[in-house]
């Protein structure tokens, strides 16, 4: 009887592989490809011991430890030690995310959508879908680990040895299996696919945070986090294997719990009661603006937190930069030296340009949210009521504008705060803030373009993203590749004065603002005139 619980697991496993025949390879290729690329770039960027030691010095501050973990072998910073220190933890986090997203999809989301009901009505076992998902994911992670290890071994880099590489791959495999088990467990507990992914991601986030706090201040605390175990394998330094077996053992226990819970529950039920929602809308929600903001609330808050962290982490590397730059030709190539200013100050202007372009992403998303709403036929709910098109698109524009200000302020402020804490002779906070906020008009041009596209033809919205990508490449790497000036000048970000190194150029900023306003006005006008899709 009990063997019937697993009936047709094999077919279901191949079915999962068939469904994800693109998704899984893309994940694997991205993770492995990025790992090998970074390993390769290390060999060309930091070819001498001296350069690696300069790099190591920038890594020994609490902010970096919190971000990438304790640097084992920092006193003899070989390529291997560098890889393990700077890449392993973050790769493990990405592998964890991959597990969570794929497992949540094949367990609870499919159950919620009723697909598992169909499968269950066929002669399949009650635990077959869960088993199939788990088996596939274990297999995928083993393949991931082996390919990563093989790749690293074949790159034939000094100090990246066979045992270390195998351990490197095994750490990724174990982390992946661990988060597969965690997600499988939550898939029994929560009633919605989103809930499963959310809970599992919080475990991942908590593991990262506990490890960060532990690594910085309390070694014992770090041992409570599975991600703490990841760095404590000391790959390429002392190669400690047993944390991997610890992780695998815990995963097995979690799997057993998940399978037990799955066997005792009804289909489509969970162990966490779904929260009772509000019977009435708050006063704030009851306007197109309130609705638009509510729909993007979680996204905006996450981005805001992300931008602050981005600023803080960029700021935290400003401490020991000058000595680092002097030993590194490639980074100096990114910057054109200017008399009277330190390389650090110049680096700040470059960072601000990059930050402002990253901060442009959330406002663009805010504008294009309206396009998504239209595609899902939800705009007609509003337009068929007493809501004018101006008010509708105006709400989204307003959110985007405020969004641009908030994101850029947080990032610039974060960078300033962290910079002040680590720099030897600090620049004052206002200078940091000015250097950042001066990019607002360029962001407005991007927002204007987005509004224009939504107003004229939303299907062309990728133009705005391409333009942002173009700006990123030309402005960020312009110095390195020596692009002709006009190529760089096509981007609005190139016309922003690079404070504090440049003088303030009011004309440029003014003209950009006018261009942005014209785009927005045109977008609004066209939006009034066109058909709404449906």
């Amino acid at each position, binding site marked *: 009887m009990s063997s019937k619980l697993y009936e047709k697991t094999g077919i279901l496993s191949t079915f999962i592989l068939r469904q994800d025949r693109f998704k899984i390879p893309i994940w694997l290729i991205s993770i492995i490809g990025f790992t090998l690329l970074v390993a390769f770039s290390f060999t060309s960027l930091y070819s001498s011991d001296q350069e690696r030691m300069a790099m190591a010095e920038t890594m020994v501050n609490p902010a970096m430890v919190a971000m990438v973990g304790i640097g084992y072998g920092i006193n003899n910073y070989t390529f291997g030690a560098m890889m393990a220190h700077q890449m392993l933890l973050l790769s493990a986090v990405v592998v964890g995310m991959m597990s969570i997203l794929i497992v949540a999809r094949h367990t609870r989301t499919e159950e919620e959508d009723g697909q598992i009901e169909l499968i269950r009505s066929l002669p399949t076992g009650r635990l077959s879908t869960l088993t199939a998902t788990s088996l596939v994911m274990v297999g995928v992670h083993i393949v991931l680990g082996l390919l990563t290890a093989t790749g690293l071994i074949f790159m034939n880099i000094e100090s990246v040895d066979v045992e270390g590489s195998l351990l490197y791959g095994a750490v990724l495999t174990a982390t992946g299996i661990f988060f597969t088990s965690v997600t499988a467990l939550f898939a029994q507990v929560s009633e*919605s696919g989103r809930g499963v992914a959310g809970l599992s991601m919080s475990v991942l986030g908590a593991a990262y945070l506990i490890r960060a706090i532990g690594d910085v201040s309390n070694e014992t605390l770090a041992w409570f986090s599975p991600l703490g175990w990841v760095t404590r394998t000391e790959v390429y330094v002392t190669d400690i294997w047993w944390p991997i077996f610890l992780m695998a053992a815990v995963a097995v226990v979690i799997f057993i719990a998940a399978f037990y819970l799955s066997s005792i529950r009804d289909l489509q039920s969970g162990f966490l009661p*779904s929260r*009772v*929602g*509000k*019977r*009435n*809308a*708050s006063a704030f*929600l*009851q*306007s*197109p603006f309130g*609705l638009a903001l*509510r*729909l993007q609330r979680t996204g905006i808050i996450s981005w805001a937190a992300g931008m602050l962290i981005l600023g803080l982490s960029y700021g935290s590397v400003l401490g020991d930069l000058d000595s680092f730059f002097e030993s590194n030709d490639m980074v100096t190539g990114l910057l054109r030296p200017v008399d009277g200013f330190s390389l650090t100050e110049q680096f700040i202007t470059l960072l601000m340009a990059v930050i402002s372009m990253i901060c442009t992403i959330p406002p663009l998303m805010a504008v294009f949210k309206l396009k998504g709403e239209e595609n*899902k*036929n*939800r705009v*007609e*709910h*509003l*337009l*068929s*009521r*007493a*809501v*004018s098109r101006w008010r509708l698109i105006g709400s989204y524009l307003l959110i985007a504008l405020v969004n641009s200000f908030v994101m850029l302020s947080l990032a610039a402020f974060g960078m300033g705060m962290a910079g002040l804490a680590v720099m030897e002779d600090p620049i004052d906070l206002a200078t940091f803030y000015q250097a950042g906020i001066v990019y607002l008009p360029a962001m407005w041009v991007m927002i204007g373009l987005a509004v224009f596209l939504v107003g004229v033809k939303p299907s062309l919205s990728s133009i705005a993203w391409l333009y942002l990508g173009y700006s990123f490449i030309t402005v960020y790497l312009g110095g390195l590749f020596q692009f002709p000036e006009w190529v760089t000048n096509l981007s609005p970000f190139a016309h922003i004065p690079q404070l504090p190194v440049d003088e303030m150029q009011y004309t440029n900023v003014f003209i950009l603002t006018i261009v942005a306003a014209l785009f927005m006005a045109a977008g609004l006008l066209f939006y009034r*005139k*066109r*058909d*709404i899709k*449906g």
Partner: protein
Amino acid sequence: MAILKTKNLTKKYGDFKALDGVDLEVNEGEIYGFIGPNGAGKSTTIRVLLGILKATEGEAHIFGKDAWEEAVEIHKRIAYVPGDVNLWPNLTGGEVIDLFMKLRGAKQQTLREELIRKFDLDPSKKCRTYSKGNRQKVALIAAFASDADLYILDEPTSGLDPLMERVFQDCVLEAKKNGKSVLLSSHILSEVEKLCDQIGIIRQGKIIETGSLKELRHLTRTTLYMETRVPMKGLSEVKGVNDVVGKAGGVSFQVDSEHMDEVIQYASSFGVVKIESAPPTLEDLFMRHYEGTEASTHLGGGQ
């Protein structure tokens, strides 16, 4: 008085005419049934009326105002329910109802609660968890809880159970009693038959028939069943008679409305013992209009 009027409404997508000169007229206090096969142009018409699509040619006026230019003013007095209701997955039904009511104008709290009870909706659930029927209930409650003068309903009951459909029909009739007008597009012909005063049939972007159900019935045939003392002979040769089927002791056939008198006179010479008559259903009308051009020539010829 016409609340809603379109004249020669045309909507082109490139060379394709989605609407080809649609004339509609809905009067005050009237329920207008708008029927037609999938893709005939019902939803396109409604979306032009709502100012969501811009007509290529022609005029659409609601409350005497231009449907495109004065959309917002018009919408203050309109309630619209789409057939395929897409809602925001992370808001609750209650929140969406409030939002919709607020966006139109005044809120009637008691009516809202009463409708929620009647339609048996749990407003505290996230829209993500609602079935199609429940999403439609959200839109219907928001529509009927607001004090609109014109209700535009685009296949609003396609996901409702028969019990809820009854509730819906009560709501429509209640609106009519209060002097409101309704434009009801529907595939459920029994519903249209029960509710509507006027009916318009659209096909390939053209209105091919309008009128009251009674008027439309004149255009078609009645089904008769007769038993006579002497077996009727040569019935199928009589003008206006179709589909003669002999049955035990009698005969069943269809008669074109305009030839009814001749047929009855012919039949009476055989000594009528029993006669049963069934009026054409809307479905007969519907089928007759929707079958391709071949079918209509066949009917027009009357054998």
